[in-house]
């Protein structure tokens, strides 16, 4: 592996059994397949139903992390990519933890703060069934192209 390349994790989470909630997982799966085909061994992908506390340890192994999730909020471009800052704001339940909290826990417990981003992809339907909606598919493709371009930028530097 090229030591100059930032070891990057694309972490997609959501419930693939609830239609567009699968967007984050599908983005991570898409990037994983693509990075293999492009021979980019510093790019890893991980998927999960939700973020968990042990993810604070997982991200210690990376320089850069992109958390990808489906969003119910209106997003003009179909997706939104923003830098993520650590936050100690804790949810009422540990059932699922927020990416900013994972970043905070990583810093406090393991003294590591990777460069982190949040990628929201707009979804529309959340019923208990497989297959994402057509518009969500368009948004997913746009988000995939965007993430690939970011990764390629870094691989060319």
């Amino acid at each position, binding site marked *: 592996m090229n030591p100059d390349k930032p070891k990057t994790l694309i972490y997609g989470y959501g*419930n693939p059994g609830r239609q567009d909630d699968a967007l984050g997982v599908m983005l991570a799966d898409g990037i994983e397949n693509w990075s293999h085909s492009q021979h980019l061994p510093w790019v890893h992908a991980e998927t999960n139903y939700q973020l968990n506390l*042990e993810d604070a340890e997982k991200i210690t192994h990376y320089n850069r992390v992109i958390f990808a999730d489906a969003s119910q909020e209106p997003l003009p471009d179909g997706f939104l990519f923003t830098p993520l800052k650590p936050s100690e704001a804790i949810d*009422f339940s540990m059932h699922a933890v927020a990416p900013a909290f994972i970043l905070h826990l990583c810093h*406090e417990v393991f003294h590591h703060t990777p460069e982190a981003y949040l990628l929201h992809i707009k979804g529309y339907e959340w019923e208990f069934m497989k297959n994402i909606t057509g518009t969500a598919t368009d948004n997913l493709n746009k988000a995939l192209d965007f993430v690939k371009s970011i990764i390629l930028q870094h691989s060319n530097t």
Partner: protein
Amino acid sequence: MGQKITIEPVTRVEGHGKVTIHLDNEGKIEQTRLHIVEFRGFERFVQGRPYWEMPVLVQRLCGICPVSHHLAAAKALDVIVGAGTGEGLTPTGEKMRRLMHYGQIFQSHALHFFYLASPDLLFGIDADPAKRNIVGVALEYKDLAVQGVMMRKYGQEVIKATAGKKIHGTGAIPGGINKHLTEEERDYLLHGDEFMNIDKMIGWAQDALEFFKEYHKKNVAIIDAFAEFPSSYLSLVRKDGALDLYHGVLRAVDSEGKKILHDVDYQEYYKYIDEEVRSWSYMKFPYLKEIGKQAGWYTVGPLARLNTSNFIDTPLAQKEFEEFKKYNGGKPSNKPMHAHWARLIEILHSAEKIKQLLNDPDLMEGELVTKGTRHLEGVGLIEAPRGTLFHHYKIGENDMITMANLIVSTTNNNQPMNEAVNQVAVRTMTGKKEITEGMMNAVEVAIRAYDPCLSCATHALGKMPLEFEVYDAGYHLIQKKIKD
């Protein structure tokens, strides 16, 4: 003027709930209820689906205990495919499932103790909520925080090795399992890196128990007297009375330890257990039929399991079990906060079991699946982290599900949680003018001892709101608080 105080939902439990506390004109507790506020019928949803989808589909009930649903459904389908009622699987099939299950118990209990319960113990119930959380633990007790993270990770790795994925795996299939453990997976879990080895996990489990016992010595009143009340207890036990988290017969004892359900075959659970519906909660109230609706309720979970079992078949956990039993005079512990103690003993037991299984060659070779004559009905029970989990399915000749009944652990604990909430409410809120954070958290601490998973209990697929409300005797809203 009387008041109704609503705490909604409960913080740091899995899912959401609402507590209403009804005060009379003198400020005394009139009635306390734990409400479940959202319901979407999962049992109806699965009707019409092919039976073989169930072990994967039912995991969507919950992101915290999917393995328990996965295995309970698989056990029910073992019966349907004619692979027996828990004892007919191949050695590889049963042991791989057991390994998966102990991994689940290990990681789930670790999550609960280190991240949900320890902040209350370390900082006190009245401590500032900004501090009383895992970040607070991480800042002041870094080793504990690291151990919690790594024990969670270890359990998840065990699940991944057996189920194929950490969340929503596919390992258990009707009649067995779909993979062996590889040599690489075994070696990684037995003696991986600094943190990823089973001896480290056993050591940390022992450390956590010592931590709790030291805390207990210094805080006897909190642990022993907090929300204490008599209860019956129900769990699976092995046929010889040993603690068995994967399979066994159904046993219940009363608050004095007298058997009230005599080691029955769980395929006929419906002969002994029924569920009552109450108008104010979507969560049902299970009870033992023979005793009746009023007094037939029971507690499940770690405390129940230690109260029903005669012994533990792993040496380190057995030693702790003996200490636990001796402390309680050989009788059931009726102290809800002892659930934390019991949970830690089960963490140690699970770690010992994982080590035993990893050294068992049956996991790496042998037949995976048992086949037999098809049946149209099957029941699968398992001791999930939070307690006994029931899955009951009927299928038609076309292999589609025609009936599903799930009694999840938290539903089994519905009445005990209500009892505990009432105990605490009476003690901390009676006659008080101000509802403080500490008082509300005391109620939540009582509920958290049961480690409830309310999204499972309502079979809900969505999110629920978070708020506190106070009503007067006329049910007018006089105070509302959002908790986030």
